[in-house]
């Protein structure tokens, strides 16, 4: 935690800065919360709690530094420390079920290439999105987290290390393992869409 320069903000000043600097992060923050909890109500609560804490500790936030990373870090800590325990556990993913789904060998055969012409239609785009979402949701939360932070929110490895309180080397290896697992889950599907899955 870094120190403030000693000057006290007036409440009006604080509220104004809070709104200007932190509220714009609401959208990514809510999305992150949703991907962690997989539940809209829980995401709602988690985000509210995060902003309350952020307001309380706003004096420790250095203006001009990365507000998004700061909020993500608070949210992730809330999720781990309190939220995870007290919330109704988000439905535990049944791996065998998911795995079974992706392993069904015979469904489409190798004829998937025939669908290539539909690739650009919106419904197919939706389908890909759904497929990516369910593969991602089936990953352990630590894996899901690094992929969201990196690929969806575009944080650097260094920012991720700070948000997650882990060394950069761990960010790298966790990301690597997370992608391998995601790849595995998507591979079958990718093949049927005509991507070369090898």
């Amino acid at each position, binding site marked *: 935690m870094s120190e403030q320069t000693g000057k006290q903000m007036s409440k009006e000043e604080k509220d104004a800065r809070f709104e200007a600097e932190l509220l714009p992060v609401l959208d990514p923050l809510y*999305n992150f919360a949703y991907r962690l909890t997989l539940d*809209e109500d829980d995401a709602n609560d988690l*985000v509210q709690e995060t902003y*309350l804490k952020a307001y309380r500790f706003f004096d420790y936030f250095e203006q001009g530094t990365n507000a998004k990373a700061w909020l993500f870090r608070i949210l992730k800590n809330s999720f781990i420390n309190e939220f995870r325990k007290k919330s109704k556990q988000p439905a535990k993913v049944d791996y065998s079920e998911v795995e079974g789904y992706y392993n069904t060998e015979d469904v489409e055969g190798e004829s998937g290439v025939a669908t290539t012409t539909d690739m650009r239609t919106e419904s197919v785009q939706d389908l890909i999105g759904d497929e990516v979402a369910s593969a*991602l949701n089936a990953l352990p939360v630590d894996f899901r987290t690094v992929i969201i932070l990196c690929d969806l929110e575009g944080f650097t490895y260094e920012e991720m290390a700070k948000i997650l*309180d882990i*060394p950069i080397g761990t960010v790298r290896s966790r990301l690597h393992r997370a*992608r391998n697992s995601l790849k595995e889950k998507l591979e079958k599907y*990718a093949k049927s869409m005509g991507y070369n899955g090898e």
Partner: protein
Amino acid sequence: MESKFTEAYQKKSEDCYDTECEKVAHILDSLVDGEASSDEQEFFNKHIESCVPCLESHQKQKLLKNLVCGHLKRVIVPETLALSIKTKIQETV
């Protein structure tokens, strides 16, 4: 408690890899995430001039990243959330 760990974990030294392809495999994520050093980038560019498998695995890794950032739908923030945050703050602080 932020970042006292660092360097020691960051990377293996370049000599640790038996083959160039192994090194590529190790930096694949850094490459697609824009985190590779200019040395690594240069090494990779040179290597793929003569190694198709590494070129392909790089493309595959890029594809995977694009699947997530290009296709994963964002959820819509409930309209009332911003307001209830502000209200809650005024109530409790």
